[in-house]
């Protein structure tokens, strides 16, 4: 170890050491800030325009929220969220399946319940047109 340090000292000029120190601290800070940020793994539950809950997408759970028509059941598993039961007739929310990516959303219009995975979409688009 000391031999290596002596070699390092011999191989570098003061400016080299400055560059080394700057580069390494820079990289460590960059990596630390980039990796400590949560990957947007939270789901926001919104009823009639108001945020009512935030759920951790990594924790498996089932929850029930009350909307305009009755109870809507949500399921969180495998880093995704989906509607499992809704009081509406069309059940489009249930059919829309799992939402995984940041920015993805699904809604039950009659019951006024909506879920959105928090964070900005990492895909190449801000919204989907259909």
């Amino acid at each position: 170890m000391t031999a290596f340090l002596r070699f390092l000292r011999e191989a570098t000029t003061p400016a080299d050491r400055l560059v080394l120190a700057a580069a390494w601290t820079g990289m460590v800070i960059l990596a630390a800030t980039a990796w400590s940020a949560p990957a947007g793994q939270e789901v926001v539950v919104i009823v009639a325009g108001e945020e009512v809950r935030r759920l951790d997408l990594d924790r498996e759970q089932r929850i029930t929220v009350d909307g305009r028509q009755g109870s809507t059941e949500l399921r969180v598993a495998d880093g995704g969220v989906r509607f499992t039961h809704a009081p509406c007739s069309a059940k489009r929310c249930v059919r829309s399946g799992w939402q995984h990516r940041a920015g993805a959303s699904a809604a039950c219009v009659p019951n006024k319940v909506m879920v959105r995975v928090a964070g900005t979409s990492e895909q190449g688009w801000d919204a989907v047109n259909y």
Partner: protein
Amino acid sequence: MNRPEPHRVGWTLLLGLLGIILAGCQSNPEPRHGQAFVMGTLVEITGIGVSQATFTQATGAAFRDMRAIHDALTPVASDNALAAFNRRATRQWTPLEDPLRSLLPRALSVQRASGNAFNPHLGRLVGLWGFREPPFPDGPPKQAAVKALLAAGAGDRALRLRRSDGLEARLTRPGAALDVGGIAKGLALDRAARILRQNGVSDALINAGGDLRALGRRGDRPWRIGIRNPRDRDAVMAVVALEPGEAIVTSGDYERTFQHDDRRYHHLLDPATGRPARAARQATVLGPRATEADAWSTALFVAGSDGLDRLGPTQPGLVIDGAGNAHANLVMRSRLDWQSQKVPAP
């Protein structure tokens, strides 16, 4: 060792570079979200570079206006502007008030330009098919009933406008009844965009159940929109960057549907046959105003790929035809960033 003359330029350059790198790390401002259930769908507004107070106030005003438009134009009410118009207009000239006053001239101009592929007065046919509101029926109506309505002019061109004191309109065929489902959402988007701008929101994206209008940009880049595959709700076929203020509207055969005898029936009726149009699965139109883009997407859906000619050379249009092949006019092709491997690029 080779050493140039010591000078300060090197250090200055190095520090300057460091500054540029750090400045490059500055990320886009945090977006704000507002959402409401209006017009029978979920409307989401995303704003950029605006204070939460301004944004909440502006989106509140926009949502209220959208609700007012919906209340005035929904076909399921019996006491709104649309119902009042339909009670009178087949018999006599009827004075128009907002929002019909601004809507009908624009509806008529697209009806004319599209050769009646967009028809804003299919109300009786839509009612007969049961597509006004969910739950939708289990089967199609009797062919004789459709024939009878068509004989009464339900699919003909029947809208006339004239200017006397104000703007007046009438419907010249007894089978006609105004149904602005193919254009009202566009109008609501355009008005919401204006209200947001008047209330201090200059960069936003308004998403009314998949039909969108942009305001400004998303920070340092344009708003980017993925166009969904009509047969795979999780897949995006292509991505398009919206110009500031531009709208993108799609009509598809998957929205208000029922299944009968292994056949899918949807709400986009062909005025010529009185039945769901089969020429396309999906039609997408871009334009500076959502109202026209909305009407044109319906027209293009009904007319299929042939409708691209009527759309004109400057309005971008994309059609997925009944067989699943993509067609687009030249302006649209230059705008699309095609992603899908399943659907070949137009």
